[in-house]
């Protein structure tokens, strides 16, 4: 006690220095989120949507501009808790681009005959009179926008965190809004609420694991700073058991967010139950952010002991690819199939992570961007394919779609081919980049599993294409494509174009990842 008193009396207190320019992207988005909450509270209902939309899009675009303005910056900002370097900026840029496209899909109001795809009042009991009353009143909620902005803000901070506590805060800032957004679906309320609850319960568990891991690593290194932990590992100071246990728990938390097996169980249920526009957003952006954080922890803090964690990652990557592809084979629901496919994709991306070389970092970043774009596009198309009760997600309803709506079906086929990694699509560029890094990093075995898994995965992607193009539409219960407003049309056009560009002329993106350089230690 006296020491603390002495400290307060003898030293002058320096206010922390905050590098506002380096943090601009995060600050802009989080600032907009706060304003968005206030708007939600004080604006009259009829003005909320246009103003929220303007706020959201301008925040995201400004954030992206700030990322571009900061390119080349390499500094540890905010008193050592945020690292702004090439990889951070590339991932923040990716997240913002993906978020802009996802926001376009979220803003859609022409697809569902009842209005938007969000429940008029999410807190009402599903099936209750209360709920029906709100539906009859034709209310719309715009609360999704502040949640969305907070979530994006958390995602921007997550891969930039340079100490584990900041990383934990970012994890929570991005997760909590997602839990709520998962429960907002207008239709199939029970599924949606189940998804939200599952995601919340399992997500909190994983956060607890993460936090416990942080505590153990702190016990080992005496610091939560990533560089500090790396230094402690080099000095080989402290209790080895703490490191192993700490790293294991930390990895559980991160791998959960990524959706890697065996921590993937939540993915299909949550992807299926959430409003589809939200699913696309969370599948794409969460993965970028979580892989960013995983890469930073693994490369910066734990790079010195990579020989200890790589074997574990080998197993997890292999298992994730196998589980994802095998379960995807048996799915009959398009959203669940895409969920398992995203698990398999996470396995492929992990090959880049465990390569632990510069190519691995670059390949992972390219793959994440390519995957994110195709994912948002694919889920955007799922929102359009509907029958009288809402989205027609059963695969049998997609039969013959190529005949009824050749353009939409072709776009969806393109995304599936990209997931399957067919050359001249973005997926191939990503796969090629991570597999090259994997072999160069000595992980040939995992790459071979990856190649075989891709061959199996091709089967269920191709099956959907066959269904759409070669089968006759079902006589009853078939789905049709609803013509969306400019928002979704634009989103799908952009994702199709980017999927082709990254596939055919990938040099620009590859150059960006090369220029991003390595993590700042």
């Amino acid at each position, binding site marked *: 006690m006296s020491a603390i008193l002495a400290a307060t009396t003898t030293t002058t207190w320096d206010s922390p220095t905050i590098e506002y320019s380096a943090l601009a992207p995060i600050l802009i988005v989080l600032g907009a989120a706060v304003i968005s909450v206030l708007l939600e509270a004080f604006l009259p209902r009829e003005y909320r949507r246009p103003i929220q939309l303007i706020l959201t899009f301008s925040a995201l675009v400004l954030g992206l501009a700030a990322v571009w303005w900061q390119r080349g910056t390499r500094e540890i900002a905010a008193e050592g808790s945020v690292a702004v370097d090439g990889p951070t900026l590339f991932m923040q840029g990716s997240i913002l681009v993906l978020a802009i496209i996802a926001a376009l899909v979220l803003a859609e109001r022409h697809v569902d005959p009842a209005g938007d795809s969000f429940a008029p009042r999410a807190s009402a009991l599903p099936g209750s009179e209360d709920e029906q009353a709100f539906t009859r009143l034709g209310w719309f909620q715009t609360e999704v926008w502040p949640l969305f902005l907070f979530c994006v803000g958390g995602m921007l901070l997550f891969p930039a965190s340079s100490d584990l506590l900041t990383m934990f805060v970012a994890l929570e800032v991005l997760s909590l809004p997602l839990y709520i957004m998962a429960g907002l679906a207008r239709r199939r309320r029970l599924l949606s609420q189940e998804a939200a609850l599952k995601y919340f319960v399992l997500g909190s568990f994983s956060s607890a694991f993460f936090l416990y891991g942080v505590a153990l690593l702190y016990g080992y290194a005496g610091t939560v700073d990533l560089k500090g932990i790396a230094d402690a590992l080099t000095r080989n100071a402290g209790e080895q058991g703490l490191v192993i246990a700490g790293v294991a728990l930390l990895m559980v938390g991160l791998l959960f967010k990524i959706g890697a097996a065996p921590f993937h169980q939540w993915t299909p249920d949550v992807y299926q139950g959430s409003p589809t526009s939200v699913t696309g957003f969370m599948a794409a952006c969460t993965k970028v952010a979580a892989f960013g954080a995983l890469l930073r922890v693994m490369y910066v803090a734990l790079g010195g002991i990579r020989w200890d964690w790589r074997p574990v990652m080998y197993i997890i990557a292999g298992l994730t690819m196998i589980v994802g592809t095998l379960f995807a084979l048996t799915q009959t629901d398009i959203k669940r199939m895409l969920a398992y496919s995203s698990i398999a994709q996470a396995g492929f991306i992990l090959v880049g992570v465990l390569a632990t070389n510069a190519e691995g970092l670059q390949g992972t970043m390219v793959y994440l961007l390519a995957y994110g774009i195709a994912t948002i596009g694919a889920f955007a198309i799922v929102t359009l394919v509907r029958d009288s009760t809402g989205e027609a997600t059963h695969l049998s309803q997609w039969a013959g779609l190529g005949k009824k709506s050749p353009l939409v079906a072709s776009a969806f086929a393109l995304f599936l081919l990209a997931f*399957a990694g067919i050359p001249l699509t973005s997926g191939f560029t990503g796969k*090629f980049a991570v597999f090259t890094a994997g072999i160069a990093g000595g992980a040939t075995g995992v*790459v071979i599993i990856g*190649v*075989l898994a891709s061959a199996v995965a091709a089967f269920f992607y191709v099956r959907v294409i*066959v269904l759409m193009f070669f089968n006759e539409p079902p006589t009853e219960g078939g789905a049709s494509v609803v013509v969306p407003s400019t928002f979704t049309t634009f989103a799908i056009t952009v994702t199709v174009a980017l999927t082709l560009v990254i596939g055919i002329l990938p040099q620009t993106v590859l150059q960006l990842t090369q220029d991003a350089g390595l993590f700042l230690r």
Partner: protein
Amino acid sequence: MNWLLVLFLLPLVGAAVVMLLPRENGLLAKQVGIAVSVITFAVSVVLCFQFDAARGGDFQLGFAYDWIPAFGVQFAMAVDGIALVLVALSTCLVPVVLVAGWNDADGARGSVKGYIALVLLLESAMIGVFAATDVFLFYVFFEAMLVPVYFLIGRYGGPRRNYAAVKFLLYSLFGGLLMLASLIGLYVVSADQTGSGTFDFLSLAGLTIDPTTQKWLFLGFFIAFAIKAPLVPFHTWLPDAAAESTPGTAVLLVGVLDKVGTFGMLRYCLELFPEASTWATPVVIALAVISIIYGALLAIGQNDIKRLIAYTSVSHFGFIVLGVFVMTTQGQSGATLYMVNHGFSTAALFLLAGFMISRRGSRFIDDFGGVQKVAPVLAGFLLIAGLSSLALPGLSSFVSEFLVLQGTFVRYAWVGVIATIGIVLAALYILLMYQRTMTGPTPDVVREKVGDLGGREVLAIAPLLVVIIALGFFPQPVLDVINPAVDRVMVNVGATDPAPQVPVAEGTQP
């Protein structure tokens, strides 16, 4: 202006133009498609004249642009003698297929213009796959070819088209992905040895790869090519795909696409992994001989004409692979020439079978009989095509089959003996088929339905027969183009022809 680039771009642009035509006007799409394919063929003839046959082992008429510098990938094409003849084969068959399959796409699930555009797209990919000198580019075309074929089978094929299309795609994708793993491995090796990774074929052929790595990389490439070729036991997709696709698609599939497999073995397996190829030779030769005999036996047992032709191709591909892997000059020249000849004779067989099937409304040999009396021209054409397929002297396949067997005998006499049985079996499957469909009494149904060939059909088949007969008597111009390239392969693989063993006359021995 580089003519090779023009050759590659023409069908691509043509496909785009055809897609922009109105959907209802199928006739216009067909006319544009045929015009584009004929011009493409003309350009390929120009290329053949520009090609310096004396330097046929060098890559000529090429161009190279940076495509993905980050991976060391170039958009680079050039042709050696082997690639040139295969490019010429592809560009020659496309107009034939379009003329012969004038009505193929009518009334199908897909539109007529879609069919034409897919065929042109495929033509572009075929030119690319043979002409690519960047291994990455080769891989891209190798995979990209699948998409048009998949839709050609799946949208325009027969009753079991879905099954056949998916089976084809999955087999090919599986092989392609194994090749991708090897390709990446090769890239990493090149990055280790030269500092920066490259996919340039000549640079890669100059690497010295340690034997263990070489074997693994070889396997990835070889399995992909063996599926494509197809070699027993990877062949089961071919009869399904060929039987369910339209005759035109079957021609391009069996006549050209499958050649990518044998071409790949010759160009990529042998030259990139010479030691591993030598190591694998016994197994590959065994598989090739099994393919020759097994394919022929299955062909004899078929009642479905298209499946029969598909199985004969399995047998013929056995000969080609045998020729490639016996590592003699005659064997490899013969194999290359065989690729060309097989393309023409199979094309004629498939197209004629298609004419018969569309007239009779059945693919089964049992449903025919005595066609010769009602359709003499059809029967005569089928006989010539069939005789070429069974390698009758004077028709083109004879020369190549003879060269392959000769090349085999000088190194592996017993293999040559077994392979020769394949020729006997070939006579059986072709002549039995001819006898059962063309001769004998003519059932009323056949008399009623099967008429002789029309002008368009004769126009499509006649050039093929002319080539078959011309190459049968005078194959030298093609061999002149091929031989220098084969010599290069032989040098790169480190093989030399065994010295001829002249039996020494008795009494002169020292």
